[in-house]
């Protein structure tokens, strides 16, 4: 093993003994003798990665995390996570002489009295917004192409946990400057936690170390933000990537691409150059955003004080869905029973969002149970070819988007000259009816697209050329598709719904009935792929 590289290098060194190659050979020998790195190079150096734009979204998430990590480390050298009060004496005039926490004053110091500090703060914050958004887009890609199917179910779960952790990282970071906006955010969290039955009051008391706001919370969130959460995230990212290597990347179906191969560019040199270059591009775009656009102007918000609040107090976008769910509750959802208060205006959003998150988390297992499909899948589905899954996804996106829109109800109202009551009532309706409508419409659209694919596979594209036949009949000439194009249109799996069959004991269990019903729902409306016979018949009319 250790001789492998030397053997490879030897002929090159003898034929062209330039200074550079001699140095390279010596250096690689040195490293090889101490690390046996050639094994890794042999294993991974020419690993193939398929090319598709949507396959880069996961990398955007990874890269923004690296950017957050780098800029965050810089910020830790200057930020002080203490709620001890000081009198601000920095450069920003409208805050001079004001009493505030050390956390706030050090954040202002980074922004106003440290060259490049504001830039780094803004890169950190913009990158955080990109991070969570990229994870969200990445998950949508995985979902709509069915990439979560066996053997990748566990990686879906890891990825989803990473999404939740990213939101937690975001929220803890949002709270660190101890400005008015973040303080009111924490106040809302405190209020929500207090609404939890049995333990809410005590959890809130322990988290804040006594009465709100206390003097402990910023330091505690800081530990979470820079130690505990990043450590878990790094570990999970590592697992996520190991699984990607073990499973090899999925690919879209196409000529020559099968369940048994991966077609694309090798890591060295092509993919490494592309992916490496892409890191710098993502970094560059985020730095550009940070140089031109203010984010979280804590100097406007001022230090936290429980009495003031700003119009337009909202969380960062990724917590918006939870804030929106709170806003959508109608008045009066609180009951006192047996001397205890049940705050349903908080519990309903918590439970509904909890269930939503749970369903997304275990969706791969639900679908596998319904379809009974236990094969490995490495070819991706085109969203239209699995209409029910795509429709469920569209319903979920609509639900999430409604909650998200609700979180900006006041901004929507002022900018479109509507009343906040009207906006909330409308969003209440779309939260319930929107997903149903989205489900039905998406399913029909998918089926229509499949029919169109069939049409094209059988008869080709409409060329727009009208020809008169000798008999006087007019026809439009169709441009037939070539075999490669056709393969893309016909290579998908057709599924028949499950039939009710008695089990080994000759019984039909209730569970089986449920499963058959679900299978029927999942596969009933379907379009079969075109077959060779159909094409032959199609050619002759």
């Amino acid at each position, binding site marked *: 093993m250790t001789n492998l590289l030397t053997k490879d290098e030897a002929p090159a060194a003898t034929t062209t003994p330039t200074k550079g190659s001699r140095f390279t050979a010596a250096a690689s020998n040195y490293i090889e003798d101490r690390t046996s790195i050639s094994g890794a190079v042999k294993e991974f150096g020419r690993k193939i990665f398929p090319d598709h734009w949507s396959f880069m979204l996961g990398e955007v998430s990874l890269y923004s995390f690296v950017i957050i990590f780098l800029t965050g480390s810089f910020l830790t050298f200057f930020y002080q996570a203490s709620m001890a009060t000081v009198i601000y004496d920095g450069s920003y005039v409208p805050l001079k002489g004001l009493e505030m926490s050390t956390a706030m004053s050090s954040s202002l110091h980074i922004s106003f009295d440290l060259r490049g500090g504001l830039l780094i703060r803004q890169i950190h914050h913009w990158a955080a917004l990109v991070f969570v958004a990229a994870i969200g887009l990445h998950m949508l890609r995985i979902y709509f192409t069915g990439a979560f199917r066996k053997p990748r179910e566990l990686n879906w779960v890891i990825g989803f946990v990473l999404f939740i952790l990213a939101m937690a990282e975001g929220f803890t970071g949002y709270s660190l400057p101890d400005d008015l906006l973040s303080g009111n955010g924490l106040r809302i969290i405190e209020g929500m936690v207090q609404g939890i039955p049995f333990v809410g009051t005590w959890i809130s008391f322990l988290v804040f170390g006594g009465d709100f706001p206390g003097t402990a919370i910023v330091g505690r969130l800081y530990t979470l933000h820079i130690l505990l959460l990043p450590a878990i995230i790094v570990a999970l990212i590592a697992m996520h990537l190991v699984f990607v290597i073990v499973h090899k990347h999925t690919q879209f179906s196409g000529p020559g691409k099968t*369940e*048994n191969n991966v077609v694309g560019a090798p890591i060295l040199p092509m993919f490494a150059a*592309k992916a490496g*270059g892409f890191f710098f591009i993502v970094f560059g775009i985020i730095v550009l955003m940070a140089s031109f656009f203010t984010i979280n102007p804590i100097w406007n918000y001022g230090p936290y004080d429980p009495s003031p609040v700003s119009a337009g107090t909202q969380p960062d976008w990724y917590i918006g869905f939870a804030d929106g769910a709170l*806003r959508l509750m109608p*008045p009066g959802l609180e009951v006192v029973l047996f001397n205890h208060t049940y705050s349903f205006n908080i519990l309903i959003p918590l439970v509904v969002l909890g269930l939503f998150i749970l369903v997304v988390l275990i969706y791969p297992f639900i679908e596998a149970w319904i379809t009974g499909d236990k094969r490995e899948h490495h070819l991706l589905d085109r969203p239209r070819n699995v209409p029910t899954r795509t429709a469920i996804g569209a319903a979920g996106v609509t639900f999430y988007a409604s909650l998200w829109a609700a979180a900006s109800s006041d901004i929507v109202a002022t900018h479109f000259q509507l009343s906040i009551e009207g906006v*909330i009532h409308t969003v209440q309706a779309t939260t319930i009816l929107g997903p149903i409508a989205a489900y039905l419409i998406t399913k029909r659209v998918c089926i229509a697209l499949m029919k169109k694919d069939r049409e094209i596979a059988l008869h080709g594209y409409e060329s727009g050329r009208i020809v008169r036949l000798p008999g006087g009949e007019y026809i439009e000439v169709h441009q037939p598709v070539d075999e*490669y194009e056709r393969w893309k249109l016909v290579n998908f799996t057709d599924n028949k719904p499950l039939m009710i069959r008695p089990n080994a004991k000759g019984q039909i269990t209730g569970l089986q009935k449920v499963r058959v019903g679900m299978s029927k729902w999942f596969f009933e409306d379907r379009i079969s792929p075109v077959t060779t016979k159909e094409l032959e018949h199609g050619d002759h009319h």
Partner: protein
Amino acid sequence: MAHDDNSGKEVAAPVSSAADKYEGPSTGTAVIASDAFTDPGFPPHRERMTDLDPKADKRAERQVFTLFYLSIAGSIFAIASYIGFPIESGATGDLRLSTLTLGVGIALALLGLGLGAVHWSKALMMNEEGIDERHPIRGTEATRDRAVEIFKQANEESGIGRRTVIRNTLIGALVAFPLPAVVLFRGLGPMNVNPVESLSSTMWKKGMRLTLDPSGLPVKAADVTLGSAFHIIPEGINDFHDKLERKAKAAVLLMRLDPKDLNPSPGREGWAYDGIVAYSKICTHVGCPVALYEQQTHHLLCPCHQSTFDVENECKVVFGPAARALPQLPITVDSDGYLVAQSDFNEPVGPSFWERS
């Protein structure tokens, strides 16, 4: 990495692996037509401009190294602007310029590097597609047999299956050992404080003056004219080291309405003074300050979740997620004409909690 024994033998159609000895996984309900199309194989390779035209190749090479040069220029520009655009004057314009130039320099350095590398790989590097074969994720029969064997051997050598008392006590010990850590976290909150008690009262008490936020100056009833809204804190709150915790419960909004517009319920008629009412500013939903007072409609709005309270009707909820009316602070005037509290609030202020009844 397991060595494969079946790769490349399968056809493209998604049938389960035949070469694998274990019973192939369920295919679910997939159906494959007997006359399905077959994979036509890879389409012919298309050459790039740079493969065909040496001039294009040279041009691409020039573009790549120009981008790398630009990147170096960006780095130098960033360092120069760090030195050349100081922010120590304290003027926000200077800071903006420093942030902008530094950022643009760094962005140029990064984008030049990134775009150059990607352009290089796209236009100049070998672009024949590579193919890797996949192997089933499941290990081979032999590997799995060996793994099972190792576990069996471990079981025998340790006797964990046989010595059930050892096994069960081990599990018990493992379950018990993190418990002290859980108990330790009780220390997150102070020991001698009961959160329920602390949530149930504020620092307001009989005779305490209503003072202006943040100056702490007392307010005379005569000063509160019709249509006014005063942001109020208790007298002397600024002297406490825990003033934020006290303020988080005791903040009050003072408004004067025409006494005819107020509709107090029986027993609460005396809580207002000549049309002046004081209500807790802390939202009964999740605790944001409710301070958007509309002096004509007499509505109070919370900017966080849009709960709306009607001051004419004891701040009952008219819209939004809040369920309870804002607690009212009973007020009167002292002998000097200053507004004072009659007592503390008659119910806990702020968000609901489990022990509240």
